[in-house]
């Protein structure tokens, strides 16, 4: 995760404040230190209360470790640490509901292997089931890395305006200069199979029309947002014809985006992983840090 430190950024975020309470589920892994440094920084930029949550035995040794890390933190916002025993998946799921958490932050591996893909790692399981928005970190950093490019989906779905609004909020908070809204247009909407020169021409006309339609739809969403959110950011739109959910991930990787913001999946089961669609592609092969916005 990455930022541009400038104080006026904090001043612009008066209109909306989607993330008030952030929960970070941590484990005592080698990457604990960078993860904690990263999340405290995020909480600071989001002006949110951070709860560090550990599923497991609380003992002095562990408390010492976590406290020593917290002493390194450069931001002095108060941090709450909670401990609880049990199965990580169930407990975090319940805690999020109980404490009405707005954003759950989890560390994740970039690539899932075959077994993890079908059985599911805890992080990804939580991503699919939890009640709040989720931020999956694949490249946490102890040092600040300037954030440049945020990519957000522009699907024609009811949750999209919220995702785009949040993407603008995050871009402002983290000081990203550019936000790309990617409209993924389903191949079947073109309604023409390219078989020869004539159908090719027809398909391309159709594409151009669909592209215009999608762009005007996205424009409308942006126009309805408060100007203070969109003012400081270069807005780009990009239509992609391809497999929905896959293309945006690949696009984010190609343009080397720093953060990808997505709608929450509607519902997923084991069948969705056998026949992956939408967000499953991205979860199995995270192109970058991923923020999934879930309406509460």
């Amino acid at each position, binding site marked *: 995760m990455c930022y541009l430190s400038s104080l006026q950024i904090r001043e612009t975020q008066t209109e909306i404040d989607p993330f008030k309470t952030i929960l970070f589920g941590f484990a005592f892994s080698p990457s604990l230190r960078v993860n904690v440094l990263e999340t405290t920084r995020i909480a600071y930029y989001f002006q949110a209360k951070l709860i560090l949550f550990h599923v497991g035995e609380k003992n002095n040794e562990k408390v010492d470790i976590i406290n020593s890390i917290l002493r390194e933190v450069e931001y002095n916002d108060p941090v709450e640490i909670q401990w609880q025993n049990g199965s990580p998946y169930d407990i975090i799921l319940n805690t999020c509901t109980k404490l009405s958490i707005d954003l759950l932050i989890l560390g994740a591996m970039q690539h899932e*292997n*075959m077994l993890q*893909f079908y059985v599911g790692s805890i992080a990804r399981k939580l991503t699919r089931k939890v009640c709040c928005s989720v931020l999956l970190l694949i490249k946490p950093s102890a040092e600040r890395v300037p954030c440049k490019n945020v990519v957000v989906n522009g699907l024609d779905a009811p949750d999209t305006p919220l995702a785009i609004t949040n993407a603008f909020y995050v871009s402002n908070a983290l000081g990203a200069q550019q936000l790309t809204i990617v409209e993924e247009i389903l191949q079947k909407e073109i309604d023409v*199979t*390219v*078989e*020869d*020169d004539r*159908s*090719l*021409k027809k*398909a*391309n006309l159709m594409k151009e029309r669909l592209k215009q339609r999608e762009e005007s739809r996205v424009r409308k969403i942006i126009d309805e947002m408060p100007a203070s959110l969109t003012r400081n950011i270069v807005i*780009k*739109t*990009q*239509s*992609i*014809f*391809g*497999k929905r959910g*896959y*293309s945006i991930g*690949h*696009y984010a*990787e*190609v343009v080397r985006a720093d953060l990808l913001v997505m709608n929450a999946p509607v519902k997923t089961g084991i069948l969705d992983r056998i026949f*992956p669609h939408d967000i499953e*592609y991205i979860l*199995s*092969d995270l192109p970058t840090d991923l923020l999934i916005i879930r309406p509460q």
Partner: protein
Amino acid sequence: MFSGFVVSLIALPLGLGLALASEAPPISGIIAAVVGGVVVAILGGSNVTIAGPGNGLVIVLLGAITTLGEGDLYQGYLFTLAAIVVSGILMLLLGFLKMGRLADFFPASAIEGMLAAIGLGILAKQFHIMIGNNGASGSIVGLLGGIPNGIFSLFQNVETSILVAAAVGILSLLIMIFYSKIRNPYFQLIPAPMWILILSVGFSYVCTWTNVPYPMDSKFLVNIPDNVMTNLAFPDFSKILQTEFILAVFAITLIASIESLLSIKAVDKLDPQNRRSNVNRDLKALGLATSLSGLLGGLNVVTVIARSSVNVNNGATNRSANFFHAFFLVVFVLLFQEQLRKIPLAALAAILVYTGYKLATPKTFVKVAKIGKEQIVIFLVTLLTTLFTNLITGISAGILITFLIHILINKSFSLFLSHLTKPNVLLFKEQDGGNYYVSVKHFCSFLNFYRLKNNLDIIPENENVVLDFSLCSFVDHTVMDGLENYTETFAKKGGSIEIIGLDKHGADSTHPFAIRKIIPLAKLNPIERYFTKRQDLLKTTAGEFQWAYEPQKSTKTKFLRNFVFFHTRQIPYLYNSLKAEDKKIKVFDVEFTEGAFIAREVVKTTIMYVHLEAKIPVFTLDKEGLLDFLYGLAGFKNITLDNHPDFNRRFFLSGENPGEIQSVFTQDLILFLESNPYYHIESNGEALLILKKERLLSVQEIKAMIYFGKQLSQIVQDPAPVL
């Protein structure tokens, strides 16, 4: 219509021959060609293809007829007809299911191996018939092994009939081999196979006139029923549920579809108007044609490359040529029944031996071997498995070994397993600049090349495409080969495909991409190491003109593409180039191909290229009356110049814009052209292309051409006031 006529001249002997090679009645090949020509011309989705019996099917049909017939060839033929009908229905289904992509799933080298096996199969059997031994039968390998023995026994034979048959066969083979060496334009008007028929049938008439008894009895001649219309055979469906029958149906469908799809793709590249065929529609038409043909006693109908490229070379522009080829075939069979019965089997066998050999020349082996060690392994495995078992097993083995080799090269099975079912291609139109950007992830091999193809297919060919492999860790030969085709198509239609992100792969020793590197580089053999006398002379000539001489092969042939002459020809490279200091004038040898696969003919010629300061209109100038049908291209009109009847009679000038062209042809230029030896001259607007003959020129001729070209360009560039 003219092209349809020329094609029918080839289709007649090939139809008879292919049917005979499959042990079916000779007329069944003609039926297939006629039905195919009519149905595909009306319903097909491609433009300049010719449909008819295909040589790939020979081995499959032969197998089906022998196994299903269990010794009775005619009964086997009837069962096979039923299999052909069913496979036609399957092909129709494939067309409706939009399975035009079927051919994309086969590794390139495995297909090469399969084609070579088919070639050897045809050669093995027909060689025996060619030397008068009609009785030979057995496995392909056995027949191949029997060839030396066959030749040996020929010398101990005393039966004149066999000796005459062998003589006819060998003479015919010599005609096939040396036909392309003879550069007489009138001789070339009739295709080689037709010459063989004409000569061998003529021979029988000579015998009659001189009252010599014809030295071959009927078992060495083609057998055609007395009345073609009433003697049609009808399929026998009684074996329809047996395993052998079902296997035969699958084999026929598979090979017919692959052969057709590959041919359609190859012919599309030759289409002077660069149209794209609707393969699914073609599949449907071929399926329907196959079923009908089977019902009438004919063989499979597939798209055939050799006849199609002859079609293109003779100026075909639409499907009517296919129809007329069928029409002329009917005319031939009805008018010349008596003559057709005089065709010796050995003559037809010779034609087939040559076709078979063309599929499996030693050059094919060398070509595959140059691509990489692993490719020759794939090729040989497919070839040998096919020879020892059958086509289906052979191609399956080819696919399997390719996959195994890929796993070994990458030392990873999971790379393929975990990404096989996932999409891996991203395509979008860049906002700034409007380029299309395609990125490929994970791996790209014959297994998932169709995803990339799907994406490339929906890009208009006149656009610029950037194809990025930097996120892709493995690209195989099939993909590189296929991309080469796409690049050519795009270049032809004014677009481009630029591949980026593969540089890293070449340097990475853990991912050896010999596959990738060798396609472009294998053609760049260091020819400068072995200087011929001609090259020495060229060097001296270059010295005399104070020009630069570069013997190396160069693949930069793009600047030739927009000359009309090269619209239907592919130019892999040029070499031995002489360049003037200012690079305005170049003379070089160029190698280009006409046709593909079987009919593939490599032509080398010497070309002079003069870049002009000022723009001039596009035109071509040729000798009147000889090659004019070659240039019956869209938008090109024959232009006559006023007050120059002699020029109009001797030269054939054509172009799109008569007014402007007439203004270029001043009195001076016309006098110059009339008083100098004939050259073929073309302008593409900013440069002149001058060539003398469709062969390399001697150094003397090159000097003359340079002199001619220099003067010509001067006259064209600064037209002196008319005297």
